[in-house]
């Protein structure tokens, strides 16, 4: 019984196509044990669980064959027409239904190394021939052209000369073999063998029965970048970063005097300034505590500006941690301005799980998305601040603070594309470049990277706070990156020079 990898249907042993889903069965095939039902790798002839025969009759033949292996191992390379006949003999599938295995094969002429061709396209020459024991490898069989007039690509059938014997074994590591194994169990008549071929087969047998070298073979082909950075080097780099961050403590943060607001910052400040008293802004705090260090100062500056302009603010979040941040932030602002009261000037609706799914409901009804508000747990209609605000269209501006470009994309794709409004995205520096296409296409009205914009926004809105902006530190950090780049390349050049001198 062969189990379809796609739908798990159990097919008869000689099936080439799954009866249930029609998918090809040639790759990743497991045999189900007829007695206990356990799955076995395709090349097994006994069940690994109950030791029953998986393919009636074939087990004995194979056990015998492995005792006198050499002849049966190595048939001479059959010609294309031989193979075609072998296909018909072994499989005899209905014409037109026959799956050709090369549908899967990758044949990137340049990228594919010999090993790749070996593992994916053809068997590794004489070394792999023992698979003939259990049947003609299906890859090989079906590499035969379905239309006789189509010329066969030689490279598809006859592998190039192996330089490394072990390389050819790659396909024989159990699972790879499973993938290339046939399910038709007709034993081919062993043709006559030349001495060299016999020797090759013996060599293969000794290598294949040895476990150790196989592991090494696998190790060789898996690429792994060397560890470039020693423990000490790493510690040194980290120390440099820490020092860079602490620069303002030593220098007194002189460069912050040079701060000048960028155009995008100025335009947002102007937009907010021009809002009439009593208009409403929806703010979504789509960032978690992780990135709060970066976004919070800017959010605070904008929040203060909105409060000073007497604009109603409704806050929400699509990040579980964002509600707590919004709450914390507004507690700070309310502490500074005694008139700024919860429920009248601002409200926090809460967390909206499932960004895309939840956001779509905002278009139809806020009350549907948020049954009660986060702080006082009242229904939204009970809050004075929510007067005339039923859906997202009723707001004058929508501001999204985000640490994930996909949450902004959800706002654009799920909400803005459905109901039109102007959307401002104030995001972490890390995701700003990813949202640039959306700003270019006009879907975002403003796009600001938070990193050090808080100071700029304070300047632009005329509400400057005497706070440390740590601008010096950014300059120092830039230097650290430059030093890193120089250090790694110097190290690289030195290793290369050493390797060269060793080579000579």
């Amino acid at each position: 019984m062969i189990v379809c990898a796609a739908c798990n249907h159990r097919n008869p042993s000689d099936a080439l196509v799954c009866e249930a889903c029609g998918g090809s069965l040639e790759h990743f095939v497991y045999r189900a044990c007829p007695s206990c039902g356990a799955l076995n790798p395709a090349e097994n002839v006994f069940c690994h669980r109950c030791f029953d025969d998986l393919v009636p009759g074939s087990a004995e033949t194979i056990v015998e064959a492995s005792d006198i292996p050499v002849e049966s191992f190595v048939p001479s390379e059959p010609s294309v027409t031989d193979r075609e006949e072998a296909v018909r003999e072994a499989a005899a599938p209905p014409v037109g239904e026959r799956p050709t295995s090369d549908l899967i094969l990758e044949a990137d002429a340049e990228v594919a190394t010999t090993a790749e061709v070996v593992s994916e396209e053809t068997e590794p020459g004489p070394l792999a021939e023992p698979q003939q024991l259990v049947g003609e490898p299906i890859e090989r069989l079906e590499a035969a052209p379905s239309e006789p007039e189509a010329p066969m690509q030689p490279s598809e059938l006859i592998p190039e000369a192996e330089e490394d014997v072990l390389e050819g074994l790659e396909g024989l590591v159990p699972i790879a073999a499973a993938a290339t194994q046939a399910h038709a169990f007709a034993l081919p008549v062993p043709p006559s063998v030349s001495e060299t071929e016999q020797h090759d087969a013996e060599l293969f047998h000794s290598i294949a029965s040895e476990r150790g070298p196989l592991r090494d073979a696998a190790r060789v082909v898996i690429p792994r970048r060397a560890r470039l950075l020693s423990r000490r080097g790493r510690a040194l780099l980290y120390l440099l970063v820490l020092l860079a961050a602490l620069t303002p403590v030593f220098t007194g943060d002189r460069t912050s005097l040079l701060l000048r607001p960028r155009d995008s910052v100025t335009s947002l400040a102007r937009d907010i300034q021009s809002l009439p008293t009593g208009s409403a802004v929806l703010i979504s705090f789509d960032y978690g505590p992780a990135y709060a260090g970066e976004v919070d100062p800017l959010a605070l500056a904008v929040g203060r500006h909105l409060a000073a302009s007497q604009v109603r603010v409704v806050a929400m979040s699509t990040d579980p941690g964002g509600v707590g941040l919004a709450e914390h932030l507004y507690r700070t602002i309310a502490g500074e301005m005694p008139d700024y009261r919860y429920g009248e000037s601002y409200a926090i609706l809460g967390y909206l799980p499932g960004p895309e799914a939840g956001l779509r409901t905002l278009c139809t009804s806020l009350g549907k998305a948020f049954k009660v508000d986060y702080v006082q747990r009242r229904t939204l209609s009970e809050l004075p601040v929510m007067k005339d605000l039923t859906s997202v269209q009723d707001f004058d501006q929508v501001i999204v603070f985000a640490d994930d470009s996909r949450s902004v994309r959800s706002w654009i794709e799920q909400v803005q594309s459905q109901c039109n409004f102007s959307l401002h995205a104030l995001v972490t520096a890390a995701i700003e470049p990813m949202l640039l296409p959306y700003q270019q296409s006009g879907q975002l009205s403003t796009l600001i990277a938070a990193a050090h914009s808080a100071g700029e926004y304070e300047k632009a809105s005329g509400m400057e706070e005497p706070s440390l902006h740590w601008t010096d530190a950014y300059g120092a950090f830039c230097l650290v990156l430059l030093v890193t780049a120089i250090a790694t390349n110097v190290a690289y050049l030195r290793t290369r020079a050493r390797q060269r001198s060793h080579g000579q």
Partner: protein
Amino acid sequence: MLETPANLLATLPPNTLQIAGTWVAALLTLATLSYVFGGNPAFRLAEHLLVGIAAGYAAALAWNQMLWPRLQLLVAEPATYWYYGVFFVLGLLLLCRGSKSVSVLGNLPLGVLFGTGAALALGGGLTGTFIPQIRASVLSVNPADYGEGSLGWAYVIDPIIVVAGTIAALTAFHFGARTDGRLRALWRGLVRAVGGVGRGLITICFGALFASAALSFFAILNSRLVFLLRDWLKLLYTGRP
């Protein structure tokens, strides 16, 4: 039950909670930052504490914001909100995944989730990204649209780079690698060459993203140091938060 300790906390002298909190926060910050010098017990404690609190906090939020209000609605007006009942049953079926014997019951809610998610991904990807982004890359490459004479020629370079670059970067992902026949080989060569340029552009893009991300992370590190140096040191010296 939990009300009593909450009342007890309220009777403490003012700022006690804040002072204790600042200490806890500062110690946890230092414990986490100690990872810079390699894994150590203090960091592992912070890691486990974080995993526990994050899961507990999110679960509490999901209960308060998602499940409890809807359960109340269902109980109050079952005729209007019957569909919540359906999803609550489906949700309970999903919880069956936790047990080996009834695990199969979880397939139905997962089917609903996969179907809904697939439709959202398909619709959103098509109407939100694919078509708008194609439209956005349609720029005029006629110098006359950008200014008179040589000025127009200077300004037209940008849209040409954007349009050609978008096409090249999109080509870089081409999967097909058919090489049989001369025409196909030629096509493959073309795709490869254009895709190579596209890979270069993608690498420029990665470089820029890497740098902006570095800046972002550095801003976060700064905010932690500001906390330690301003809030905690102030508390340390003055005894007041």
